[in-house]
């Protein structure tokens, strides 16, 4: 028995037929509990489901009608809004994080500890707690007096700076050897060039982490769009699910079709970038 495969339960050791059967049942049960509801969602979205009490689990009479009806209710527009928000939101978030990370990781300057404390403090200020004043701030941005209520920009800019991304970037940029930077400096490279051409290209794994986490974080937003969207034109897809459901002529099959469109992007991102995901989970949680 090699030490590398040793686990807490030592399940790999159990060999008998009974043990195997028990294991199979346990894993099948796990699969049904966690992935089952999502499979039901998938199947229902392609089936005629008119009964509000049911999801279809067995595929029968496959149809695209649910999607057609969902599109008639403007789901494509909401999907576009969601992509707009996640696209620009992520761009802004990544740009802000790499810039801040560079300063925090590669420079020593007076006030640095204070900045670090301020950034960590924002983790204690989730937008749930700030919901009410945030609507006032967004309705009349201090100094510039812009009203972002009812605009997609209002759902984007508050997400621009995210402490998690900045911390991941900072930690990673700290590990880039100083010699590389010095060599570039001796060759006459300017500050921005060093940032963009020396440090940033070496941080691709960290960019993957903050990209994947930023995407799922922004895609999952609910309260912020709910506060900002003053009319259905600026709804994102998650917001639209509720209005779809309340609509008396819409069947659960249609709600599930719209839900499928709402979950696919983040599920795909997770499935394609699992490695970045796992890395970020431990970075985010275990460093605490």
């Amino acid at each position, binding site marked *: 028995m090699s030490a590398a495969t040793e686990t807490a339960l030592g399940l790999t050791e159990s060999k008998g037929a009974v043990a195997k059967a028990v294991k199979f049942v346990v894993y099948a049960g796990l699969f049904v509990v966690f992935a089952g509801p999502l499979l039901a969602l998938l199947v229902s979205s392609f089936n005629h489901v008119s009964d509000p009490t*049911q999801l279809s689990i067995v595929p029968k009479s496959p149809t695209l009608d649910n999607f057609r009806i969902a599109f008639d209710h403007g789901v494509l527009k909401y999907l576009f809004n969601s992509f707009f928000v996640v696209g620009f939101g992520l761009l802004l978030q990544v740009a802000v994080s790499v810039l801040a990370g560079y300063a925090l990781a590669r420079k020593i300057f007076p006030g640095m500890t204070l900045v670090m404390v301020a950034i960590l403090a924002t983790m204690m200020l989730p937008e749930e707690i700030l919901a009410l004043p945030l609507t006032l701030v967004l309705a009349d941005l201090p100094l510039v007096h812009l009203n972002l209520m009812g605009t997609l920009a209002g759902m984007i800019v508050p997400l621009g700076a995210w402490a998690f991304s900045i911390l991941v970037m900072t930690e990673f940029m700290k590990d880039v050897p100083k010699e590389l930077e010095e060599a570039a400096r001796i060759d006459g490279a300017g500050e921005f060039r060093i940032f963009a051409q020396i440090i940033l290209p070496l941080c691709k794994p960290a960019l993957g982490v903050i990209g994947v986490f930023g995407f799922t974080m922004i895609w999952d937003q609910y309260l912020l769009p709910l506060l900002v969207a003053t009319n259905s034109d600026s709804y994102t897809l998650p917001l639209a699910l509720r209005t779809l459901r309340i609509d008396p002529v819409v069947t659960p099959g249609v709600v599930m079709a719209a839900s499928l469109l709402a979950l696919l992007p983040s599920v795909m991102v997770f499935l394609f970038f699992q490695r970045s995901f796992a890395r970020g989970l431990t970075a985010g949680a275990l460093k605490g």
Partner: protein
Amino acid sequence: MSLKEAAPPVPPPAAPPSGARRRGSGARSGARKRSGKWWIPWLFLAPALILFVYFKFIPMAQAVSMSVQEVRPYLGNTWVGTANYVEILSSEGFRSATWNTILLAIGQTFGSMALGFGLALLVEGQTRKLTFIRSAAFLPVVVPIAVVAELWRIMYHPTSDGLLNQVIGLIGLGPSGFINDPDTSLASIAVTGIWRGAPYDMMIFLAGLAGIDRGLYEAATVDGASTKQRILHVTLPGLRPVFAILFVLAAVRGFRSFTEVFLLTNGGPNGSTEVVMTLIYKLGLEQNRLGVGSAGAVLLFVATLILTVCVQLLRKRRAV
């Protein structure tokens, strides 16, 4: 558009440092300090700091200031001191919402951690099958919360042909009203929360399990320890820091839960699932009582702060 305004200013490339040709001694220790003007780090930090000030610190200051005023749009606010706090603390609605929030946070935190720990033990390992099961089990975490709520809403259908009622009917239970019955509504929301929270905890536990010295397991086996003893004396102590972190994360998440409650029950039936956040939302945005709502938000903030600080202190003491 305003979007441009918030976009990070591109820092202009700084002039090459004057001593660029200098080489050799002293470069190492001085590299970070002499690398440019004092304002360069602030230029790089500016976008982040501006956004944090606008969307975190100003709103927080405003929450505190609104909580001691009567907020009257167009008329100007009037100072009311602690009246908002007195009002919200003495209201029956806030007290029951606080109680519901605590129950929900406890249920979700311990449910997710217990289930997540069990799952992690079951799926720990390197085989292909396990990787597949792990990914499948993790899916609920990446599904948007709004979708989770809509999906569970249908599954919780209160009649006997609802999906979950059929499942519990197989073992002779039900039909339950789930989210439509004041007795089971809060527990139902907790179950949905655990479904989404347990796989997340599982992943963190797995990372923690990977950090446990394999040699300890072997030693324990050689010493004739049973599986139970191995978990009790090797696994659990090794995971202690993970438990502490997950506890804080999950408890804070539970304190501020909003979306799942808002979409599944919106506080009903009969106020049985009203939590602090849904109450604040209703006070502030539906009844326009921003002062009282802000007082509630400040209290919620203080509660999460106290919880985090306490756990950190406990961790520190134990570590020393």
